[in-house]
């Protein structure tokens, strides 16, 4: 229990310090946060025009598409706001900056992940809630279910990106693969499931698990079904454990380095 308390204090302080670091540049923080919300809103306009012309896409109406955007955007945002280094692990390893984390009495992966927040992710996170608020049928139950689903989504995003980044331990440079994983995860998540073939669907229910971030949560939201939460939680734990194990396996191969550096 003491361990859990100590980790919660560490994560809380880390998050507070990260927020202080980004708020230090107030203008940048505001521009990036609201810029990201605007960027996401542009896609809503695109979908509104498209669905207005063709009726629906793959069985999805405008509200479905917006709900998917809300879920994915907030999950992605939460993942990068809380664990901002999730897509920088490869770079940190390559530059030998893992030394700093290895010198501290905390779990290395958790320490690395929690050491940064991504400013634009705050915009993504807020955008999902804004869309949810604008969609019809907002209720406390729907809001609570959305909040739980995006925590699960954030965990799955984090686990998948961390695993892709950990490839750098084995390949040296895995930047390309990691970028591709991000692109695929987002592309699979933000379009209706039925437009993809069976082979692709197998991919996003297994190695690139965007189904558990977008399609399953969408079904849960539409039916206000809390019954899907336990299996989704189990799946998130499974991906997190696999990703953690993969990182630990890679860590054994860490070779450090001598490049000069500072904590930004």
């Amino acid at each position, binding site marked *: 229990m003491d361990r859990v308390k100590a980790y919660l204090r560490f994560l809380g302080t880390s998050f507070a310090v990260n927020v202080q670091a980004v708020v230090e540049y107030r203008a940048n923080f505001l521009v990036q946060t609201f810029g990201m919300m605007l960027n996401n809103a542009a896609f809503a306009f695109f979908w509104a025009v498209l669905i207005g012309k063709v009726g629906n896409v793959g069985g999805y109406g405008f509200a479905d598409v917006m709900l998917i955007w809300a879920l994915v955007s907030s999950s992605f945002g939460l993942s990068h706001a809380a664990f901002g280094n999730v897509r920088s692990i490869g770079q940190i390893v390559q530059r030998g900056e893992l030394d700093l984390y290895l010198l501290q009495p*905390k779990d290395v992966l958790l320490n690395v992940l929690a050491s940064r927040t991504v400013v634009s992710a705050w915009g993504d996170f807020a955008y999902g809630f804004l869309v949810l608020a604008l969609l019809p049928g907002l209720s406390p139950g729907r809001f609570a279910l959305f909040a739980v689903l995006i925590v699960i989504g954030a965990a799955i995003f984090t686990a998948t990106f961390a695993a892709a980044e950990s490839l750098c331990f084995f390949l040296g440079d895995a930047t390309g693969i990691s970028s591709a994983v991000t692109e695929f995860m987002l592309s699979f998540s933000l379009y209706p499931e039925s437009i993809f073939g069976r082979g692709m669907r197998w991919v996003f229910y297994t190695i690139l698990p965007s189904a558990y971030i977008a399609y399953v949560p969408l079904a849960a939201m539409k039916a206000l079904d809390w019954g899907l939460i336990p299996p989704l939680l189990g799946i998130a734990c499974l991906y997190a454990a696999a990703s953690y194990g993969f990182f630990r396996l890679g860590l054994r191969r860490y070779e450090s380095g001598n490049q000069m550096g500072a904590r930004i």
Partner: protein
Amino acid sequence: MSAISVQRLSKSFRSKVRPEGLGSSLKSLIAPSYREVEAVREVSFEVEEGEVVAFLGPNGAGKSTTIKMLTGILRPSSGYCSVLGLDPSRQRTALARSIGAVFGQRSQLWFHLPPSDSFRLLGAVYEIEPEVLARRVPELVERFGIGPYMDMPVRKLSLGERIRCEIAASLLHAPKVLFLDEPTIGLDLVVRREVRALLSEIARRDGTTVFITSHDLGDIERVCKRAIIIHHGGVVVDESMKELRHRSLSRKFIGVKYASPVDFELGGLKPVKRTETAASYVVDTNEHRLPEVLRALVGRGELEDLTVEDEALEDIIARIYAAGASTGEAGL
């Protein structure tokens, strides 16, 4: 109990051989070849609790690799090391609570935030009770004279101010062993002296074991009691600073200046540098008796100046490096 125990510790890295030219590069894409680079080779030594030890060696000698194995950053390829009775690669987290580290090239302070925020976070990292932290921080702030910088973003601090904050941060959790890798790199003379004084005080007052690598021999002379020198991955010298200094006793540096030109040839002894009226000699006292040499120089003409000096520590170590480079072993 030894604070640090190292037995036949080795570390090898597998390095890809990169041939020159496009053709060879393409060939290596299909059939890459690798070679083993031995960064540390069967290094053994013990450091007692409270000792202040300099770990020296030229660039690429294996100093940083050894420190990284001792702090749990790297896993040894073979051999064994323990710090405070713990195996760094297997008990990294437990060890991290009892050691501190300052890497001159890396900062543990947040660049955009004042040190006070980094201290708060490090308190959470090291699980220091808030009330203990509230006592400890002002104590370190006063001791290191960093009060004026505590609320300034680290990016606005000078290197000297930053390194003082770094060392204070590394002592927050009262470590029993402090590892310092080039702590005075890039610092000016005045700040270097301040840092050395602080390190000496840490060792004296707190009884902290200090293990320091530095290219600045001023650090070593003023702070350390013992030196371990490694070269080509192996230990070539492990002795007290006193013993290291004794290595120079058989070599004396003599400088003379006369009022008018004289003949500087002294039997078998030739000057290493000379002008018409001045010269310097390096005298090996095993071959020449010093009083006789001095008598001969005094009788050579009207003296204006005469100096006799021991060899500088820098030169002693440079000779050890050079001997190590040519033979792979120690020798003077």
